[in-house]
């Protein structure tokens, strides 16, 4: 029953003006895309990090591109990062013992 994040990515989005902030807020309001905004879009000077479920990746990337909003992939595969972290915890627990 543990939640997994297979194929999910975290995008770092850099809005360049107020219009793009509004476009990001519009994106945030689309509940069906199930986006997890780690930073709220409010100021063009602060990058917005968003966790994107795999099924919404295509749509979100097309949305950003079509609105000329800059983004980069901050975490390529969230589950891999979580797995690596778990592995690290297990091995450090062993070392402690």
């Amino acid at each position, binding site marked *: 029953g543990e939640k997994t994040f*297979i*194929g999910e990515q975290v995008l770092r989005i850099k809005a360049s003006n107020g219009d793009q902030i509004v476009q990001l807020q*519009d*994106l945030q309001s*689309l509940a*069906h*895309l199930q986006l997890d905004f780690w930073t709220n879009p409010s100021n063009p000077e602060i990058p917005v990090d968003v966790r994107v*479920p*795999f*099924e*919404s*990746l*295509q*749509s979100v*990337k*097309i*949305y950003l*591109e*079509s*609105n*000329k909003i800059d983004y980069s992939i901050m975490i390529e595969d969230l589950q891999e990062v979580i797995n690596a972290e778990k592995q690290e915890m297990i091995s450090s627990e062993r070392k402690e013992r």
Partner: protein
Amino acid sequence: NSGAFNYGAYHTLDNLYRAIDAIMLDYKSIVSKQLIGHSYEGRPLYVIKFSTGANRPGIWIDAGIHSREWVTQATALWTAHKLAAEYGKDAFVTSLLNNYDVFLLPVTNPDGYAFTHTTNRMWRKTRSIRSGSRCVGVDPNRNWNAGFGGPGASSDPCSDSYFGPKAESEVEVKAVADFIRGHSNIKGFISIHSYSQLLMFPYGYKCTKPADFEELNDVGNAAAMALRSLYGTQYKVGTICSTIYQASGGSIDWTYDVGIKYSFAFELRDTGRYGFLLPANQILPTAQETWLGLKKILEHIRDNP
């Protein structure tokens, strides 16, 4: 022998075209091939026509308008063989083809498809070149004359969602649009995409409900339920705007606005981890379940002429 073809594998364009020929030869009394135009790089656009009589209303199905969505071309080919092989055996297929012609275009964007096999597996657009632009191609599902150039499409030629210099600038889009304009009796238009598991209907270029919202929503939900019955694959159903977001220049918006009430778009598997790179072992299950969804829509069209 079209029955010996491996429908559970991904194939090159040449092999897909050979398979179309095999289906045509095996079932020549009901299947023919129509050349509706050529792609930008000169590749033929073949529509498979299923017909058992003259002057029938028609139903259009296309796949592969976005070239990287490989499961769609594969599903279309499997569907072509299914329609041909089941005529005279399966009651639904027989009654459908006794009343309607079906036009199936398995590879709407053949240049892009060839490019995904040779150079860039993730290519989505056409391969048209414009002088003065350093970037290639137009998004053929932003190039229809339906809210052309509006939200959800890009004016940047380098973007994957570039809408192009004008509506129907892409010969592949114009070929299909000309075909629809030339056949006044098309009752249904179904476009097959991947991925995300959605079944959508108009509108995308605006967020208002179409006049036939209730009926399209009911048909869509019935189709999604039928599809789910085979392997439990869940689909979301709704307008393009409500299931994705406002996106302009799409094919089913255009067909709906020119009077084809039953305009739908599928986004096939998956929602999990593969997306465009869906493993070949999922082609047949995808095609089989999609058939059940398609069948529901086709039944409704047949029963509501």
